[in-house]
């Protein structure tokens, strides 16, 4: 998966951005999986792309789909997984609220953990909440863009 390294001047800075945008990276991964005739990678990448392209998909659904994709392709396509991970980390964050009246705490997402539950535990730890959280502790994943619209 190696896009041309000689973009023209007009698209020079755009190409640097494109290389790290979710759908673009996913499409590059699909192309690589097709060339390599890898049905498992193709399936996982297609599923992830469908979820990503669906505006109504929840952040949790997208993250879970990414983790499945990562498990299938990371060994052969580490750079692509890295780009997707960093892109998702820039697009989403976690919001932790302890109790009904607690102030929501925004927590940056780090997806370099083995499973969804570990990611949740890290978010709770970062918000200084015990991983064995009480029933009233709420953890949500939020799109950064949606929060900006609301505020």
């Amino acid at each position, binding site marked *: 998966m190696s896009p041309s*390294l000689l973009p023209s001047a007009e698209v020079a800075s755009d*190409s640097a951005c494109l290389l790290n945008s979710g759908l673009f990276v996913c499409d590059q991964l699909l192309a690589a999986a097709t060339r390599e005739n890898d049905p498992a990678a193709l399936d996982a990448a297609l599923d992830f792309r469908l979820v990503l392209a669906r505006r109504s998909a929840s952040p949790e659904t997208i993250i879970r789909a990414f983790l499945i994709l990562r498990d299938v392709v990371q060994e052969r396509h580490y750079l692509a997984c*890295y780009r997707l991970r960093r892109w998702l980390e820039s697009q989403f964050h976690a919001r932790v609220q302890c109790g009904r009246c607690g102030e929501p705490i925004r927590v940056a997402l780090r997806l370099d953990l083995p499973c969804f539950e570990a990611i949740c535990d890290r978010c709770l730890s970062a918000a200084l909440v015990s991983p064995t959280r009480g029933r009233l502790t709420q953890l949500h994943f939020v799109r950064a863009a949606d929060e900006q619209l609301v505020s």
Partner: protein
Amino acid sequence: MKATAPADSKTKTDSTVVAALNLYLADSYALMALTHHAHWNVEGPGFFSLHKAFEEQYDHLFETIDEIAERIRALDAYALGGLRAFAKEAGMEEFPTGPLAAKDFVAGLVVAHEKALADAVALRDAAGNVNDLETQDMAIGCIQWHQKTSWMLKSYLKAV
């Protein structure tokens, strides 16, 4: 052999070229800092080879940075300076402090090289547009180095 433009020619002090040089200067300084950070904090089975490779890369960048800044001065303009200014101008994502997988250091540097490469290409073309062949020649050398370094970094990430 085509003569170079006179020293007081407009082409020598074109603000587009100077702006592109200053942006690339910032990129190079930021990339040097990222590479140095990776050199310090990389861990794991690939430590010795990566630690040494990163050192060679930031040493190269340290020399390049000086050449770029002095080229700006030769064009009778002023070079950008200061960590805050470089970081803001380059806009490169930094590594977190703390443990990080070796492959994440390598992948992060690939991404940073891509940004620097894109700006080196823009510099090359800006210099070419005003017939500043000397700056263009310098930019071409930088492009070649980024391409070679990116190839090496990506090779490390490939599963064998």
